[in-house]
């Protein structure tokens, strides 16, 4: 590794290309921690938003009109307001209302920090889109298939989990992947509430070291990489779920 760092240092001496965030241990550590935070944030949000989508789609099929109206209200609200403002609302407006606990220094701090609020806000945001996506997938399952399951004696939950959901997932996987990629990109907005994710840490580094352009290139490469890896994984998932004769 040392050889690589020396090479990068020489680039700076010769051409002025400042990649200090690689060869300086402190900056490198900051950057890697920021990237790790982004990965954690993205993973948690993806999982939670998918769960919210599944539950929301299930509730939308319920017989109670109040429940259906509540889910519709949730969807329309989160889909037609900016995710950044939602995040501010959660963190600055709702956050102070939460109870406070004492941290290890004996100072009272809110029970949920900026990372937690970012997860909550982004999960609800992406979850609203996921409910619509799962709902269209559920609607694409033929009524006759559901009727056959009903005739065999399956109860409503069994029909949903064993028949409808596996088929709906296969139909809506492309739209879902699209949405999750957007979610990963939207995690950068957590910058605004001081979550130490990659963009935030990068901005700290470029303020200290005045290497905005190099940081930008690194940042964009990083995000393109994680989006690319995610798309690759989801393509593999799509392929493994493929069933002959269905949806082709």
């Amino acid at each position, binding site marked *: 590794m040392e050889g690589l760092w020396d090479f990068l240092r020489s680039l700076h001496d010769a051409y002025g290309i400042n990649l200090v965030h690689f060869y300086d241990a402190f900056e490198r550590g900051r950057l890697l921690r920021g990237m790790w935070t982004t990965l954690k944030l993205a993973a948690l949000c993806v999982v939670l938003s998918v769960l919210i989508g599944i539950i929301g789609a299930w509730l939308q099929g319920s017989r109670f009109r109040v429940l259906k109206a509540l889910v519709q209200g949730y969807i329309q609200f989160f889909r037609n307001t900016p995710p950044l403002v939602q995040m501010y609302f959660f963190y600055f407006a709702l956050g102070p209302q939460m109870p406070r606990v004492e941290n290890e220094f004996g100072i009272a701090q809110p029970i949920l920090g900026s990372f937690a609020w970012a997860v909550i806000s982004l999960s609800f945001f992406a979850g609203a889109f996921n409910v619509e996506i799962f709902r269209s997938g559920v609607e694409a399952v*033929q009524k*006759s*298939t559901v*009727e*056959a*399951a*009903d*005739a*065999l*004696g*399956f*109860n409503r939950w*069994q029909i949903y989990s*064993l*028949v409808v959901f*596996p*088929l709906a997932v*296969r139909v809506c996987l492309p739209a879902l992947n699209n949405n999750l990629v957007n979610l990963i990109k939207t995690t950068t907005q957590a910058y605004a509430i001081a979550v130490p994710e990659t963009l935030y840490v990068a901005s700290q580094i470029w303020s200290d070291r005045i290497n905005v352009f190099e940081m930008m290139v690194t940042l964009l490469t990083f995000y393109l990489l994680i989006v690319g890896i995610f798309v690759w994984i989801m393509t593999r998932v799509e392929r493994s779920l493929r*069933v*002959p*004769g*269905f949806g*082709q």
Partner: protein
Amino acid sequence: MAAAWTPDQPIVSIRAVHKSFGAIEVLKGVSFDVRKGEVVCIIGPSGSGKSTLLRCINALVPINSGSITVEGQEVHDPALDKLELRKKVGMVFQSYNLFPHKTALENVMMAPIHVLKRPKSEVEALARRLIKKVRLEGKEDAYPGELSGGQQQRVAIARSLAMHPDIMLFDEVTAALDPETVKEVLVTIRELAEEGMTCMLVTHEMGFAREVGDHIYFTDRGVIVEHGPPETFFKQASDPRTRAFLSQIL
């Protein structure tokens, strides 16, 4: 609770059933009995209510008035355990309705495992036996998308049989098939009938009805116009509507 049912009583008893979808009345007072082991064929023009009637028998569709009892149990009793009813009454549909994401074997195994909670090994043995019975040995691991229409329909029959029903309902099961594959399905149903299964078929296959049926019912516009055993029904139909229908299709 219903009185204990004995096999000498009708296994399905339909009395004055009325069913409307919104403003359209589809069944206008249908009554008949089916005895155990009988093969009943229901024929008639489209829109006469045949498929609706079958769906009312296994409680897929509620009725507006009248009564349907299966083995002495009133089907449209709100306190009815639908699960118990579905164990007794199996249904096969026109559009096979196999689960596309499961293999043929898994399709047959799913209901006994999840609904009847039988152990997997026992169910797998049963499923393989049934697939062999419908002459699809070798196709256990094929997905529905890889099977022809007739093969899918036979898997659907095996799937319903896996629940060990007392009555099998067939809703125009050969209507979506081409003529060569129709035969293979009819052969399967005929074997079931010969083994003593009570069958109710909505069908257009007059030849099959004549050979295998014990009793034919002709419905038109929501009522049973005429019925009788095949020998008298096809040769000496008395009602003009029946004769008009028969002359069109025979």
